[in-house]
């Protein structure tokens, strides 16, 4: 037999060497390319669906939108809430109702749409605020009167009244991302997944649905550059899967499941840094008050009394998270020490009997995620204990986030839903989603209370901490009384990153892609 191998190398020794090489390559964890500052690979918990700042659907989209459409300001990364300028050279509040801004002189739009001007700022902000456009984020600019263009780069934002959340939950969000008037008017519609006239530190280079989104450094961005040539964003819904991906070397940064935090903190993977951040998010069980099976308030109150919230949270988060008493996290005005209903199965049974609803069957919709499923099963057991048969329905993220939408065909069939909303550091950003205008948008419980709405409006102009504290506590008491809400937890945020990466994170652990840098 002809020996094709060089020298004394036999076939057997060649195979042995290859085997050893293969084994060695598996023993050394693969590292992503973040070490040389070329590519950063991060996980997002959902894929993008809309890249229009006015119609965005999820937090991961916020991050992409902020990276590709230059915002006036972004949140300051670090442990203290604040903001830093991006598209502006200067921005300041002149009085309660006037903000002056001056844009940087050389920010351009791609696709030949020229330089960003103050008129683009006027267009972008007024477009979002205009009720005719039905932006779910119109409330961010609820106090806007108009944007006045002073000259090519500067202007004034005029408010109708004092608006306390302006610098916390309006300006440092995609609500202040600037679009090209010319591009948008030519397009005549909202931006979906093919952005035109991008202007940020990064540009959307590629989107492979359900697989990968690639942001590439904008070669025409003349200011502080993004930290990486490319950012690869991998949509992975389940945090446990993302953790496996990180440990396999496929990711440089990911949120972890809260339940994994104790293990990861105790025994972090080699070359990894584990972070735990206080979360502002809130998780709750919502009850659709317009669903025929839940229209009787006694049934909704019975469900509130049937749920052992401490056990639900302990089981789902393995003791790593505490129980929430509302939608507003500790430290913010309106944070409560208790809810107005307690865990009382006997009372729940009595209310059900009074309502003639023994043997009731309900459906609980959840996002297909391990923590939610665990929480749902405890809720299911709690409800079974008082005689309610609960069927759990798991949904992928694309389906889940449309369940309560009035544009869909399921919103009236929706009964119980386990939801989680992210949050900005102002209580109004939590309360706004439960106003009557949000019924069928994000208010899936269809909670419709005029007093709540009036208090919400009052909270937007009141800046004394004690007064705001009282307003938002009263609003959450109204939510309790409606029987539509069982508040569960604010979670904590767990994140893990390579020690070769310096992550750009808000104080609550949410990422700012444009602020990630090589360590």
């Amino acid at each position, binding site marked *: 037999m002809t020996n094709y191998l060089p020298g004394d190398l036999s076939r057997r020794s060649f195979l042995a060497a290859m085997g050893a090489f293969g084994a060695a390559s598996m023993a050394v964890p693969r590292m992503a390319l973040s070490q040389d500052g070329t590519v950063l690979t991060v996980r997002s918990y959902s894929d993008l669906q809309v890249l229009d700042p006015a119609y965005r659907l999820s937090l991961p989209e916020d991050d992409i939108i902020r990276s590709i459409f230059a915002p006036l300001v972004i949140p300051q990364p670090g442990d203290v809430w604040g903001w830093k300028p991006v598209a502006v050279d200067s921005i300041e509040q002149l009085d309660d109702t006037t903000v002056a801004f001056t844009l940087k002189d050389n920010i351009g739009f791609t696709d030949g749409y020229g330089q960003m001007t103050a008129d683009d700022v006027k267009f972008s902000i007024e477009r979002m605020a205009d009720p005719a456009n039905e932006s779910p984020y119109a409330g961010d600019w609820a106090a806007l009167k108009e944007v006045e263009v002073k000259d090519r780069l500067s202007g004034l934002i005029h408010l109708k009244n004092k608006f306390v959340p302006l610098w916390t939950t309006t300006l440092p969000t995609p609500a202040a991302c600037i679009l090209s008037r010319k591009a948008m008017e030519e397009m005549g519609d909202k931006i979906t997944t093919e952005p035109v006239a991008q202007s940020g530190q990064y540009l959307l280079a590629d989107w492979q649905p359900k697989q990968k989104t690639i942001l590439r450094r904008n070669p025409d961005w003349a200011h502080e550059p993004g930290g990486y040539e490319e950012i690869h964003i991998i949509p992975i819904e389940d945090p446990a899967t993302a953790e496996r991906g990180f440990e396999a070397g496929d990711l440089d940064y990911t949120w972890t499941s809260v339940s*994994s935090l104790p*293990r990861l903190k105790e025994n972090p993977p080699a070359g990894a840094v584990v972070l735990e951040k206080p979360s502002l998010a809130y998780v709750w069980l919502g009850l659709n008050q317009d669903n025929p099976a839940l229209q009787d308030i006694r049934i909704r109150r019975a469900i509130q009394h049937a749920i052992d919230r401490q056990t639900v949270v302990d*089981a789902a988060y393995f003791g790593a998270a505490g129980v929430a008493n509302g939608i507003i996290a500790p430290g913010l005005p309106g944070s409560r020490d208790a809810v107005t209903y307690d865990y009382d199965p006997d009372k729940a049974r009595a209310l059900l009997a009074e309502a003639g609803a023994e043997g009731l069957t309900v459906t609980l919709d959840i996002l297909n995620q391990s923590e939610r499923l665990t929480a*749902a099963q405890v809720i299911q057991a709690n409800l079974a204990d008082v005689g309610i048969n609960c069927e759990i329905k*798991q949904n992928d993220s694309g389906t889940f986030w449309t369940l309560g939408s009035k544009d869909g065909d399921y919103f009236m069939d929706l009964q119980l839903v386990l939801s989680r909303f992210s949050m900005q550091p102002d209580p109004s950003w939590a309360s706004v989603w439960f106003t009557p205008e949000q019924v069928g948008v994000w208010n899936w419980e269809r909670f419709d209370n005029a007093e709540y709405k009036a208090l919400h409006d009052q909270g937007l102009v009141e800046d004394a901490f004690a007064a705001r504290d009282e307003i938002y506590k009263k609003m959450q008491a109204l939510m309790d009384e409606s029987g539509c809400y069982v508040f569960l937890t604010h979670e904590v945020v767990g994140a893990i990153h390579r020690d070769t990466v310096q992550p750009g994170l808000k104080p609550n652990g949410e990422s700012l892609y444009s602020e990630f840098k090589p360590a």
Partner: protein
Amino acid sequence: MSAAVSDAWRPVRRLLAEPLGALGIALVLLVIGGAVLADWLSVYEPSRISPRDRFQGPSWTHLLGTDQLGRDLFSRVLHGGRIALSVALFSTAASLAIGVVLGLIAGYGPRWLDNLMLLLFDSIKSFPTVMLALALVTLFGPSLTAVVVVVVLVNVPGYARIIRTQTLALKESEFVTAAQSMGAGTARVLRVHIMPNVIGPLLILASMDIPVVIAIEAGMSFLGLGVRPPTPSWGAILNDGFTAIRDTPWIVIAGGLPIILTTLGFTFLGETLRDVFDPRLKGRG
């Protein structure tokens, strides 16, 4: 009489004489026995949660440990076996019944009908199983019924194609022509003369498909597309364990081991059945 009994037991003896066949029978009996006697063998109610007992390792109290909700895994595995076997047996039987009927019609019927049905079989077959499952679950929601429908849809075209091919070969044979000339109708020809001659190999094939069906059910439940919680299912147990695989590997082992044993059992049994009843196919596949 004794000769007849001896003849009846001969295939069984041949099966048991094959080491893999004996092992297959033993594993299948173990799984079936566990499922049938689940209520008697389980100390705990399989869906009873007890958060205080979560993540306990295997012990005499909990033979396979407990999951994240403190549920006894041994009880869940036994009851999960019921789901797996019920889905496998029911959906395979339904697939066989539908496949045989459609295959006979395609093979014995007119050419245009044959072509139409082939197009239908190939169209269904061209759907990837997971895509089909996702589409059905989107339409009807996750449930045991959805799992059965997916399995039936996936299996029917294969069975029907085999029956059609054999029917085509038999319909021109002399004994069929003789039956037709003696006045036998189409239904009688198909039922009495063709079906008994084509169904044998299909039964062997079906027994080898059972582990595939069990894997489909487990896979769908793992993905949250199968049985609804808290119904125990091997796939759901795997999913529960996947979250905490680093610290509590026994959950994944408890969910995975029965799938492996059942797959091996039915595969060994099916292959030995094939070798015993159709020696021409020995060593193939």
